[in-house]
């Protein structure tokens, strides 16, 4: 058994070093090189640039809390949409804290004039806290408020939402959704900015 152990040591150490170099250095660096060359935009975070400044990423959500924008879902990432602290709420189905938070969100939407049951995603925190999307129903539920604040015809805002709905891939893969950053940029490009929001 002792000679067995000795026989194992050299391969164990040398193979560790060799594999660490191959898998921990060569592989990720080669993929970085190829990725940066072929897909530079995606490899660097799919940033949306306006006037030379990064204003967001097409894949990662950002906080929209003011009334003149379509608002993103509740977020448990830091104080909300914190890119350094992705997280869900981790509140369980029988959590009083979940009930309290949801009540507050429901009350907020009621105050905006939304009636009937709220779409589930509008009153729940996402898994990452960085969800870039809303369900179409959650976007439509905010049309009246946005239109009022921006003094735009509701039909025009509703059409804007409709134009920004991404359908499921091949009709079955994924859920219909609205990228909130894209929708709000389209909104900004549409009409006069209302003043006195919030």
């Amino acid at each position, binding site marked *: 058994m002792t000679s*067995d152990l000795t026989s*194992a040591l050299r*391969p164990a*150490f*040398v193979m*560790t070093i*060799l594999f660490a170099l191959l*898998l*921990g*250095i060569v*592989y990720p660096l080669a*993929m970085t090189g*190829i*990725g940066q060359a*072929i*897909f530079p935009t*995606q*490899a*660097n975070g799919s*940033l949306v640039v306006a006037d030379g400044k*990064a*204003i*967001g*990423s*097409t*894949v*990662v959500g*950002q*906080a*929209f809390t003011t009334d003149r*924008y379509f608002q993103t879902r509740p977020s448990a990432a830091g104080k909300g*949409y*914190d*890119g350094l602290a*992705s997280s*869900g*709420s981790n509140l*369980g*189905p029988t*959590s009083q804290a979940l009930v309290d938070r949801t*009540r507050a969100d*429901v009350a907020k939407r009621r105050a905006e004039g939304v009636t*009937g049951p*709220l*779409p*589930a*995603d509008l009153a*729940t925190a996402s*898994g*990452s806290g*960085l*969800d*870039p999307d*809303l*369900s179409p129903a959650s976007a439509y539920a905010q049309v009246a408020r946005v239109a009022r604040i921006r003094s735009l015809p509701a039909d025009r805002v509703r059409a804007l939402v409709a134009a920004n709905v991404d359908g499921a891939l091949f*009709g*079955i*893969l*994924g*859920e219909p959704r609205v990228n909130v950053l894209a929708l709000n940029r389209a909104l900004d490009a549409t009409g006069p900015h209302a003043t006195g929001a919030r």
Partner: protein
Amino acid sequence: MTFEGWILILGFVGILLALTKPVGLWLFALYEGRRTPFHVILGPVETGFYRLSGIDPKQEQGWRRYALHMIAFNAVLMALTYAVLRLQGVLPGNPQGLAGLSPHLAFNTAISFTANTNWQSYAGESTMSNFAQMFGLTIHNFLSAATGIALAFALFRGFARRSSATIGNFWADVTRVTLYLLVPVCVVVTLFYIASGVPQTLAGTVDITTLEGLKQTLTLGPVASQEAIKMLGTNGGGFFNANSAHPFENPTALTNLVQMLSIFVIGFGLTWTFGKAVGNTKQGWAILSAMLVLFLAGVTITYAQEAAGNPILHGIGVAGGNMEGKEVRFGIAASALFSVVTTAASCGAVNAMLDSFTALGGMIPLLNMQLGEVVIGGVGAGIYGFLLFAILAVFVAGLMVGRTPEYVGKKIEAREVKLAVLAIAILPLVILGFTALSAVLPDGLAGPLNKGPHGFTEILYAYTSAVGNNGSAFAGLTANTPFYNGLLGVAMWLGRFFIIVPMLAIAGSLAAKKYTPESAGSFPTTGALWIGLLVGIILIVGGLTFLPSLALGPIADHLAMISGKTF
């Protein structure tokens, strides 16, 4: 539940069934040590590795030597990762200037990645440097997966060989699986992920000024290269805290599908490889059928529960299914499916927060792990775990008809059954023992975020995940403490190596036996009766052992949920 949701679930299984034989054939070539097309490029790498480390790949090893070399390799790898994590602050590739990890967190993480668990007591984006992600963690994603497949090969040889003293060469198995399967697939999948929006850069962070004028800092890094092997190797340790729910890890419904397929594809293939190795591919399909019965039952329950939603939230004006902890782009069907896939396998990646699932929706992932992660299972670990149950099943069948049990041409005798029970018994011993300890000690009770039965489930889930080498979590539990990092680290180590060693002993014992041809008195191990028996044994062993703990956790939680009680 929706029509589209079921199309996704059945389409997912259909794709995997179509891939089973091709992947199984590829694995069989590696099992036999045959030449593959990738030998042209990577063959010199393989021979170079052997030469530098003084390995003769043709030198066969008995089970003791195979086990010893496997453990030595894993111990050295673990020490390397511990050192990298502790020293991260002074090592290069650290654009965010992150400090080294605490001793207990580094201990936990090093064991975790070595044991193919990838439990995350840390939040990747604010804890791990790019170098630590690549050099400390990604290497384990490859090598713990390759180790698992090598061990499955060793057990296959135990069944397939006749009167043999050896079960293969560990180094040859690990090297071939890594070079000719894992690396090539990961290169392709990494490029697909990058094209879909997963970052791949050496930069650390990027600052954004949002439309509302706030500053948002996003963490970047070599994410795609790690994501590819994280799923294919059923590792599951995310680059980010939110794992595959994070849009940078899993940006689209299509990447989500590829991630789920990656988790299962090798496990499906290995069932076919087993059948081929023992000379009857029907044996492999029988195993796969039993696995699929359990898998589809689990998916149905979780999907139905999540789609039905939380009656407490319905009562305060929220419609529809349970979206707490879920991403809009995946929705309920793809989140439910992912959660069952990741816990049926020993992956542990999550695209939705399991802690926020409905009580019974979240119980299925827990139960999947308690059954031993033998429903497809982790790469290699799933099939060798399943074969332990198959040994128990033929033993039980043998008792019922009063004959010496046989399986795929080998007599199963007292020694194999004892070893199989020893390996299987480690699960309840550690899961229930450590959970009980944590449910009474102050350090343990400080962990849960949620109160009531759900808090108990958080503790139970943590140890189940650790012993099962899964790595998923009811993540509300605050686990980055010396108490939990220590106990969970020990649980992960026991759950990996205290199953592997008895399993290799079985392989050695079987390899030495003569071939026993099938006779009229043999219990057939291919038909519906056999599949039913396998499912029954797995459910009885897992169900009876863990039912009381489930009653205290998720079942009590469910009863509270439907009666509107909160904690």
